[in-house]
């Protein structure tokens, strides 16, 4: 059968954002895949060189819009490492609460897009409706729905709003009941399992060599979670389980993300209970020192790292951003080869693409 290049163009309901996957097809099975990115390249690293340290925070919010809190927090930890600042205790706890809420909202957004791709519109609407619960909580905390601009260098922008703890506890109870319902909805449906089990298998040594991190790596059996292995902020006194799965197919990636949502609920509950009082921010000096800073954070999509070089002025000399999705997309051909064209939806959906951080 003649081999044919199929072009899943930039404008496509399957892709979450703007990237183009050219797939070489022999009949139905995929022979080769070439992802094309760069449709959303905004030159963020060049922009950051022209802005002062605090002006860069809104830019890093718009890196990956699905989990903007984790990205601006990553930037703040990098600059704190550069300036060698000690963040007050209360700010570390507030940051953990905000990050975990963002993780749940990001995983729910992924679940909605994934169910929508597989044709299950019930999954799409229910998860979108329940994501609103956390978006409202984050809106109460930070004032914005999606790009929060909440972390600051040396702490957080402002303290928790009144009776924030009561709303969070109520939301967590609601969420746990909903998560149970999703598991019955998704795993109960035979067709969903038919489309997921045994599709897009990624062996653990391939995943490590290709640099895939986050839920996709843990789904292949490598239990490596930055929050547990190199705890930052207030994660060392939270006890939670790292969600892993062994066989690395689409179902495993779905399963790992669902477990992570359960764990995040637990973490938020502990963080709210152990929340110390006191200062929530340290005023950072305007000019950064000469030197380099390196930050590493567990983003809902993988391991996000930043490397900042300070030259003594109030602007970063160079800011390098490592996006987990940039590496996962580069690994797409090795996962896709050998599966059917119809599986591209499930495999690519399972890797939770967020093109904003990919193209920077």
């Amino acid at each position, binding site marked *: 059968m003649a081999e*044919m290049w*199929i*072009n*899943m*163009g930039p*404008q*496509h*309901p*399957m892709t979450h954002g703007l990237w183009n996957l050219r*797939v070489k097809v022999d009949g*139905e099975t995929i022979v080769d895949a070439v992802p094309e990115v760069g449709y959303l390249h905004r030159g963020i690293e060049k922009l950051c060189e022209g802005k002062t340290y605090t002006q860069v925070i809104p830019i890093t919010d718009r890196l990956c819009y699905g989990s903007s809190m984790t990205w601006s927090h990553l930037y703040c930890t990098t600059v704190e490492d550069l300036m060698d600042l000690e963040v007050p205790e209360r700010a570390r706890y507030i940051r953990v609460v905000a990050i975990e809420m963002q993780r749940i909202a990001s995983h729910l957004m992924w679940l909605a897009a994934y*169910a929508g791709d*597989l*044709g*299950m*519109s*019930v*999954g*799409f*609407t*229910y998860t979108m*409706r329940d994501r609103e619960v956390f978006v409202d909580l984050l809106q109460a905390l930070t004032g914005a729905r999606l790009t929060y601009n909440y972390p600051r260098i040396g702490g957080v922008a402002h303290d928790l709003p009144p009776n924030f703890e009561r709303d969070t506890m109520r939301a967590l109870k609601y969420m746990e009941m909903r998560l149970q319902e999703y598991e019955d909805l998704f795993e109960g*449906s035979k*067709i*969903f399992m*038919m*489309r997921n089990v045994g599709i897009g298998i990624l062996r653990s040594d391939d995943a490590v060599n290709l640099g895939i991190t986050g839920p996709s790596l843990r789904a292949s059996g490598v239990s490596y979670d930055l929050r547990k292995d190199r705890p930052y902020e207030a994660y060392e006194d939270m006890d939670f389980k790292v969600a892993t799965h062994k066989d690395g197919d689409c179902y495993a990636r779905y399963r790992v993300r669902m477990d992570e949502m359960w764990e995040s609920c637990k973490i938020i509950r502990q963080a709210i209970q152990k929340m110390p009082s006191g200062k929530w921010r340290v005023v950072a000096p305007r000019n950064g020192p000469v030197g380099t800073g390196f930050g590493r954070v567990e983003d809902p999509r993988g391991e996000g790292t930043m490397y900042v070089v300070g030259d003594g002025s109030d602007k970063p000399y160079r800011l390098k951003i490592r996006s987990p999705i940039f590496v996962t997309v580069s690994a797409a051909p090795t996962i896709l080869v050998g599966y*059917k*064209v*119809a*599986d*591209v*939806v499930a495999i690519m959906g399972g890797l939770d693409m967020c093109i904003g951080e990919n193209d920077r």
Partner: protein
Amino acid sequence: MNLYEFCYGILHWLVDLVNNLWYWLGDTLPWYFGDFFTAVGDFAASSGHLQFMTLLLESLVIIIVALINVLNFLWIFRKLSGRILDFYGPYYVGYRIGGWLQNLADGMKLFIKEIIVPAKADKTGFVLAPVIFVGSSLLILATIPLSENFGLSTSRDGGGVPAPALFALAMFAIAPFTILLAGWSSNNKYTLIGGMRSAAQMMSYEIPLILCVASVFLLAGSFDFVDIVAAQHDIWFAIPLFIGFIVFLVCLIAEVEIIPFDLPEAEAELVEGWTTEYGGMRFGLFYMTTAVRSYAGGALATALFLGGWQGPAIIPDEIWFLIKAYIVYVVFMWLTWSVPRVRIDQMLKLGWRRLLPLAMLNLLIAAALKTMGWF
């Protein structure tokens, strides 16, 4: 007093009204003009002309009733999806009647959009595909009677259509060819794939469908809907042939391309399947035809398996038929909105490996029942 006599009566009265004008003209004008008008009057009153006109009027009435039901189906499609997916569905369009005018607005908007024919497309095929698609689907509706005396095929003494059930299934089977034609003629690699997939899906689900219907014919002993429904007088065919009924519904879902078997339309690499290049009213025709075909499917299911218009007499027969057709459609929609899409090879495997043997088994059961003499 069936539909044919009703239309015949109306037309007869109308023709008499007009004729006395012709005859008056025929008498007053001089001979060479007058004869022409009297000849027109005689022709109008002749039985052949009357019969032809009543058939036209009758099919017009049936098509109007069908299209109103189709609009209702489109409304159910949007409103029920709202209920299942937890939002309102169309609400502000046609405010007090619950958004029923939304489909009208969609249709008319598509009606006035610019007609685009892609430059490299094969013009005749591109234009012809929607016409045949809509035509064949509406023909199915013509043959399915709503009750003894409300149907095109039942009303004439000699019986209009020789074997209406077979004719309806034949019309159902025309659609794959038009979809192939549409996919090929819009000259776009993805629509071609979509067209081929859709044709493969429909063909592979046509055979179990026909086998189940064959088992119904076997029990009922005739191809005419009226006899089939009469045969279901004491027990509906859905009960003895339950396997056949389930296989029939699944094949109908594949035939009408609803979500679990929605392959050609919303696949990974096909943006919109074989309707990608169609815009304006041509897309409107395709969109409406899916509703027409689901109405026809529902009507077939009720006529063949659920004892068409049998029901306690308090409700007129036609209403019984429509109630059952709507219930079948609601079950379709309920399934559609809660199940994800099947992959193409899984679907074909399901078709050939699961449904075909079940349909065979159902045929055996029907044959056994027949030889036992219970039917």
